[in-house]
């Protein structure tokens, strides 16, 4: 058995919470995805298998709905409402992102549901919180993130360019992470107390507390961070950390060398590449390598020697980066003890030997197509309680008979 085996989740289909349902389903929960008879709109989102739109061909749908069973119900129809209530009586968790008054209007507010299942955990994910009237305004991932903080910190040194929203529906993901954290917390509480409860997740609040120093620089010191190209937004401008490598890909140079052994490795690598002659400051690398004890970082900018050593370290990194492909720069720096990263595209990361070796690519069978496809794998490895994709995303109403057949 896995951690969530036997826990039944009713998920009212909505792209805002689909990822939360997937996270629970891939850990073994019995997630029943409930769609309206016409199907959830996300079934029509590209990209599509072979670029051909059609039923059950949306890769967006495939990704977000693994391991779930699917039923169709029209909650406004009496017979389906009766079925839904019967399902609630068998459920442990309800996960939804409905308009704030819709469920109560159907007689399915938390109090109604708890009457059917007293220890029910009801997780409601809304844009601004369940009691905020603005929660019924339309939002998208873009507007959610813009109002919630991340784009203010994200973009370029040139502030005539707009702030940037990172792609991939990360705003929804962040809200889903909190929906899952809340669910697991409430499950642990229910295991000791036998009690369920109502949980109000604000998507806007979730973004707000996921912005690192942008928030606490204001909370603590009333200072405002400013966005910078490829690095942390900061109250005071910081040095560049992103560099173009010889193959046209970028790398993040991370934290420059700080320890004598790091200066030594960098110097040795420079020599090995035959680049020492191109760096007049190489002598400072040698000084850094033979430095006694630790550097006093507070002397950078005031002490000439320390300043020159650290500048030479950054120069050497830049020079090497320009001379080798990004991957070689990444692995070479890491072997020298420096926290550097190649800026991979998602598919390059997916094909990287490290993730393959850890088993990140998993095959998922689509029996009706007679094919299997490689999916992204586990976010965490629980050996005694393994993450797993139990089945491909459900077709519309695929499990109606099976699920409703189990009901009295």
């Amino acid at each position: 058995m896995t951690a969530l085996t036997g826990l039944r989740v009713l998920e009212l289909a909505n792209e805002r919470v689909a990822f939360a349902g997937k996270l629970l389903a891939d850990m073994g929960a019995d997630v029943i995805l409930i769609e309206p008879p016409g199907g959830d709109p996300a079934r029509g989102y590209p990209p599509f298998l072979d670029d051909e739109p059609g039923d059950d061909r949306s890769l967006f749908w495939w990704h977000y709905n693994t391991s779930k069973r699917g039923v169709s119900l029209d909650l406004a129809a009496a017979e389906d409402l009766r079925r839904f209530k019967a399902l609630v009586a068998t459920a442990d968790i309800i996960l939804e992102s409905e308009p704030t008054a819709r469920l109560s209007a159907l007689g399915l507010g938390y109090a109604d549901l708890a009457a059917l299942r007293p220890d029910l955990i009801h997780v409601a994910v809304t844009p601004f919180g369940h009691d905020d009237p603005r929660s019924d305004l339309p939002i998208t991932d873009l507007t959610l993130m813009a109002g919630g903080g991340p784009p203010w910190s994200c973009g370029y040194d040139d502030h005539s360019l707009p702030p940037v929203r990172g792609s991939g529906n990360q705003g929804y993901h962040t809200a889903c992470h909190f929906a899952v954290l809340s669910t697991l917390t409430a499950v642990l509480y229910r295991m000791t107390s036998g009690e369920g409860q109502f949980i109000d997740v604000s998507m806007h609040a979730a973004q707000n507390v996921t912005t690192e120093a942008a928030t606490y620089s204001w909370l603590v010191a009333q200072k405002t961070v400013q966005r910078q190209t490829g690095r942390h937004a900061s109250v005071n401008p910081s040095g560049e950390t992103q560099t173009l490598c010889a193959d046209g890909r970028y790398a993040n140079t991370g934290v420059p060398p700080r320890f004598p052994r790091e200066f030594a490795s960098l110097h040795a690598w420079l020599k090995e590449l035959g680049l020492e002659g191109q760096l007049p400051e190489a002598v400072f690398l040698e000084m850094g390598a033979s430095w006694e004890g630790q550097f006093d970082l507070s002397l950078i900018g005031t002490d000439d020697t320390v300043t020159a050593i650290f500048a030479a370290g950054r120069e050497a990194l830049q020079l090497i980066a320009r001379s080798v492909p990004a991957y070689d720069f990444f692995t070479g720096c890491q072997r020298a003890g420096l926290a550097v990263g190649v800026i991979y595209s998602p598919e390059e990361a997916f094909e990287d030997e490290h993730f393959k070796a850890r088993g990140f690519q998993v095959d998922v069978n689509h029996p009706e197509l007679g094919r299997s496809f490689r999916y992204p794998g586990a976010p965490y490895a629980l050996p005694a309680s393994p993450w797993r994709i139990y089945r491909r995303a459900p077709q519309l109403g695929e499990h109606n008979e099976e699920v409703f057949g189990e009901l009295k």
Partner: protein
Amino acid sequence: MNQGALSGFRICDFTGQLAGAGATKWLASFGAEVIRIEDPVRQGRWDILRGMEPFVDERRGVDMGGGFNNHNTDKYGITLNLRTERGKEILTELVRVSDAVTENFAAGVLEKWGFGYEQLKAIKPDIVYVSNCGFGHQGPYSSFKTWGPIVQAVSGLTFTSALPDQPPAGWGYSYMDHTGGYYMAMAIMLALIHRQRTGEGQWVDLACTEAALTLNGPALLDWSVNGRPTRQPVQPSSNRSRWPPMAPHGIYPCAGDDEWVAIACRSEDDWQTLAAIIAEPWCGDDRFATLADRIAHEDALDAEIGDWTARWQKFELQEQLEEARVPCAAVQRPQERIDQDSATQNFGLWPTVTHAKMGEVRVDGQPVHFSKTDWQMERGGPCLGEHTEDVLTRLLGMTPEDVARLHEEGVL
């Protein structure tokens, strides 16, 4: 300690920075007893946030870091010198009375001190051990070092945040330190649920890069199923939307210095509503007639919309489009979303905690509310060794004299 959903769970916590400390902050805010164990020799400076800005005033030092306070609310802090035999014995006794051991050191550090999973399990057979490091404890890169931006770079997240003809923008903060912490907290609770149900503990090897790689799922499937890479000759703008396709969809300038607004038209209806508000001749251009047309001419469309939005104050435009029910949000500055935003204020998102030296400080709350066992935040992050005597006397039956002696002997 508050009586919360997780009261009764005790965490022996070696985490720090944000990727680890953020995880146990969640647990502490729901009442778990989180005991931070720090190195007295290095004054806990492994967690660099201890001494880093922002600061509440001119005071500096390991107890004054604003970020540390933010990420370590309601935790207990003790010092323990694991270079000493007695230090190791005390840790052994603490593990014996704990439910979980958590850390986000580089791979292998805890094992080097003699507290790898096998040893932890020998001390307490059902212990939950969750390690969180950039590349995980297994695999070719397990010895590689990371911090948030490196995790984001290697997992594809930096690449997919950019404007056309520009280098990657990245995230501007450690999105994956936050999110790695969320996955770590999930892993801890999943393992605790498993243990409650089976009596069995386990070691969860969390790799932040792997958690990050799951966050671009549709793009990965487009690659593995259709063979289409995200890396293209012309990189798309991440402010636009292809999955689902929407246009207009972007961040546009407003009146003032560095003021911006986000607008998204989900449907033909949204576009028609917006066009009626703009009410300029170009709105009727054939170039913008259908979604496919607007996507084909998105640069021109965005330029026209940007000319129009630049005449507006961002919050006035937001209000106007909210009334019309077209998705729209001002790009909010920290001050605006913290001090002037009714949605965060009414939600109680910025609680004030009391720190032993800083006094009252506002911190990030949790973006959720539980009807029965809601989170609470009262105490600030622990000063170095603030709870050493409290924890060792309360949990291990030592006397204050024992603790004083151990301090003198360099064990604490």
